[in-house]
């Protein structure tokens, strides 16, 4: 399994000279399986670049895993090239909602006044699936989606292939109401899908100083992110969902602090950046 980051900015796209090293596009990660199946996680603005890169070399079927329906995770979908190809079979997976179907919630974006074209007019053959409660399989990959602590129906994903695990929890506030360092792990949101992952993409939006003013917004401080990853015994932690107000220099300062918490002697901690490629073998 290979993964490539096409967007790792949180909340709002943030292009500009101060964000060039880590990128300004919102959440999107491409996953390729051993049999070259394409799984895309989230459809933030980063998915536009993925669509361009796929031009002429696109599998017939694409599976898109949405963590939730906040705009920064779906706003790129209308600019994803395969959506405009009638030969494309696009399977969109996402969390169920007590109120509206996944299709209706995506259609709310694909409709005026937010978007000029209605969902029904998209040429691609689109199928919508509520994520199952149990594990399921896409080719050689076994997947598990689990609800995580973030406003509105939101899930994180665990993808396992040949014994290697990639976990993606882009928007997550596991520390809300609990002390991550002392609470039993089975009481921690997201723990089961992150446990012993080889790679964990995880929300690391705020500094420790910023977090107290943003409690309940659904995101983590770097201290919470590192503690969560240490408790879950992940091998590699990739800080994700960078705050749109943070410059490259600020992100690097956050990484220094995160390394203090992670342990200077340990490898495996980094900031996600656009173009980052990971191979799980």
């Amino acid at each position: 399994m290979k993964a490539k980051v096409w967007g790792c900015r949180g909340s709002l796209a943030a292009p500009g000279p101060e964000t060039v090293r880590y990128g300004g596009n919102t959440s999107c990660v491409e996953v390729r399986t051993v049999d070259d199946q394409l799984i895309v996680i989230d459809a933030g603005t980063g998915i536009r670049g993925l669509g361009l890169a796929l031009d002429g070399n696109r599998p017939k079927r694409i599976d898109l895993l949405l963590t939730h329906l906040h705009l920064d995770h779906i706003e790129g979908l209308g600019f994803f090239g395969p959506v405009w190809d009638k030969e494309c079979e696009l399977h969109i997976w996402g969390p169920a909602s007590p109120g509206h179907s996944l299709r209706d919630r995506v259609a709310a974006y694909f409709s005026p006044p937010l978007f000029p074209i209605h969902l029904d007019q998209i040429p691609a053959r689109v199928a919508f699936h509520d994520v199952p409660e149990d594990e399921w399989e896409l080719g050689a990959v076994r997947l598990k989606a689990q609800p995580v602590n973030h406003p509105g129906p939101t899930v994180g994903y665990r993808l396992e292939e040949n014994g290697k695990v990639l976990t993606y929890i882009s928007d997550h506030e596991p520390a809300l109401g609990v002390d991550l360092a002392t609470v039993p792990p089975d009481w921690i949101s997201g723990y089961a899908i992150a446990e012993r992952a080889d790679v964990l993409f995880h929300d690391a939006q705020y500094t420790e100083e910023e977090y107290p003013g943003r409690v309940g917004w659904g995101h983590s401080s770097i201290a919470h992110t590192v503690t969560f990853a240490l408790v879950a015994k992940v091998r590699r932690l990739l800080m994700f969902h960078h705050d749109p107000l943070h410059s490259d220099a600020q992100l690097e300062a956050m990484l220094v602090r995160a390394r203090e918490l992670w342990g200077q002697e340990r490898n495996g901690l980094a900031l996600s950046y656009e173009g980052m490629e990971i191979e799980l073998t």
Partner: protein
Amino acid sequence: MPQKDLVLILARDLADKLASAAFVVDRDGTLVYFNERCGEILGRTFAEVGEMKMDDWSTRFSPTTFEDEPIPPEDLALVRAINEHVPVHEKIRIRSADGASRGIAVTALPFFARRDEFVGAMAVFWEHGEDEGKGRASP
């Protein structure tokens, strides 16, 4: 290791912040948490009691009506919330672990994560004067 359902994690967080006594059970009715105020009424802390099956907690505190009639487990508000998936309110008397008899008013709420996915329930209760307890209430 499996983890608790997110709704229960959030319910525990809510219980922790409530001044009222609160008691949280999972989809099987197993007690998974109660808060400090609840511990004062029951006469034990959760750390002392730990997780407990429904058959155990539903009889352990000798629930009775205010007329001292024993209440069968299946008629308790929280058990009904678990079995029937409906909210229930009642006024009962229990015997705490310290032997004291206490009148309590209980409101039990079933939790659904998806429309039809029952994941557990919570009971919030208040200590109650003897005179206020006459006549058990139902939904």
